[in-house]
């Protein structure tokens, strides 16, 4: 009788990894990645396990099945994985864009922004964090200074979200082609609010940030 050594492939790791993300099991997810690294290359772990699992997670949220805790754990584990795997990889990042991000003036709620940052960085976007309660002029100044392609703004309350219109106005006045992307609770409850404020796009959840970058920037050449 022979003992078959069970070798797991990327696909089954991905499935296990996704399941632990869905269970918001940080330590479980970490363990799976450790095992995966013993059998797969760092490239494969990142591009065939981590990234596609995050995509699947994003799709789940689109159907409204995902809780903040699941997303939070996913962003934490992704951050860990990236910092460990990136140094081992030659061809990365896939998205060579620059962005500045912050919460709008008067808004001190950092959590949404911080989760977004982790996912964007994992996708290879270079993100400069401007912190909380950032004035509209400062968003634009910093974007110019950093030569950013995108400005990301987060707002938790309606009355602070409305101040984002000033960023759009300054961008138009200065004829800057930087893309303005917004997110946070008020935008999720009013799907047209971002248009009224003059933003180029709104993002429903942190994972979707990556898709919007692709969409906006690919259209931009």
């Amino acid at each position, binding site marked *: 009788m022979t003992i078959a050594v069970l070798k797991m492939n990327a696909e089954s790791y991905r499935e296990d990894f996704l399941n632990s993300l869905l*269970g*918001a099991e*940080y330590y479980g997810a970490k363990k799976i990645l450790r095992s995966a690294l013993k059998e797969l290359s760092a490239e494969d772990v990142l591009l065939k396990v981590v990234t596609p699992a995050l995509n699947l997670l994003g799709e789940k949220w689109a159907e*409204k099945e995902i*809780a*903040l*805790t*699941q997303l*939070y*754990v996913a962003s934490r584990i992704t951050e860990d994985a990236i910092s460990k795997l990136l140094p081992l990889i030659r061809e990365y990042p896939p998205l060579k864009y620059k962005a500045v991000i912050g919460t709008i003036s*008067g808004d*001190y*709620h*950092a*959590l949404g922004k*911080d989760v977004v940052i982790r996912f964007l960085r994992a996708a290879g976007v270079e993100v400069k964090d401007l912190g909380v309660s950032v004035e509209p002029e400062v968003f634009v100044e910093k974007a110019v200074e950093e030569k950013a392609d995108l400005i990301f703004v987060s707002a938790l*309350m*309606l*009355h*602070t979200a*409305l101040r984002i219109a000033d960023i759009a106005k300054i961008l138009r006045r200065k004829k800057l082609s930087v893309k303005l992307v917004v997110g946070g*609770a*008020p935008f999720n*409850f*009013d799907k047209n*609010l971002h248009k*009224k404020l003059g933003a180029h796009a709104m993002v429903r959840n942190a994972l979707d940030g990556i898709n919007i970058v692709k969409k906006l920037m690919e259209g931009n050449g």
Partner: protein
Amino acid sequence: MNSFERVVAALTHKIPDKVPVFLFFTVHGARELGISLREYFSKAEYVADAQLKLVKKFGHDCVYPFFYAAKEAQAFGCSVVFYEDGPPNSGDPVIASYEDIDDLDVPRPDSPVLEEPLKAIELVAEKVKGEIPIISAVIAPFSLPVMLMGFTKWIELLLFGDKNTRNKLLRKTKKFCVAWANAQFKAGADALGYFDPLATADIITRDEFLRYDFRLTKDTIRKLKGPVAYAGAGGSFNSIIDLLPETGAAGIVVSSKDDLTDVKKKVGDRLVVMGNLNNIEMARWTVADARKAVRECLGKGAQDGGFILSDQHGEIPYYVGDDVLAAIVETVEKYGRYE
């Protein structure tokens, strides 16, 4: 039927003359009195006076002398940030590191910070008790830590932190919640919103609710000396809706993301269903939009009673116009009659 009788009928699952309608004004009072929000919330008299003016103006079925959520954080020692055109927020958290939880004092309901909110309830009670329901709110023990330490710290403690520290904190927030809620009942509140947005599907999973919050909530609500409505502050209850009747709550405030027909079907026989106008969209509604939205809610929620029309959160944003608010009440008057 006066407003009070109408709401009691809804609460006891009897058929009232028409659907009760609650307009949860938190910041409009300042606009009504022509003063800043900071000034408005500095005196119970302002809040009570404005609530009575607003209920006279619009003819809805409640007064809501609730100040703002961050008031509780303020009682614990946090600072508060005021705005010109929106509800105040909690500022610097009182828990800077997890060690601070040990020394965290639970404020008493007679502490100076809470004096004005209690007085506002007493003042409206003197005028309308028994005629118009007096509604206020309390933040659930599981949700309050967000304001005491910041959301990230609370999530970290919940998911990765020390269990004893977490439980110690929750014992303190529970103790406060019970005392603060009962003080509001004693002052004259008829019912409270029990705000637990952290329990919603937007924030945690069903498993996490069962693990961290379900028992805590049941234990808390059991100790309250009046009825509460479980409120998700706009978050969806779809993951835990079947569990909510067991919490001891008398009602539920439904998110605009959730379907009223579905909610009524699942819990309508045991909980009064409230909602679910989208308060964020409301800020740019026309009168026609308002009418349409109200009729949709009535169509889905009003059947067989047990329903109160309100916004999904317990908060009408500053920029919602008087014409829209009047249209909401008028539409209920016209299409929300039971006979």
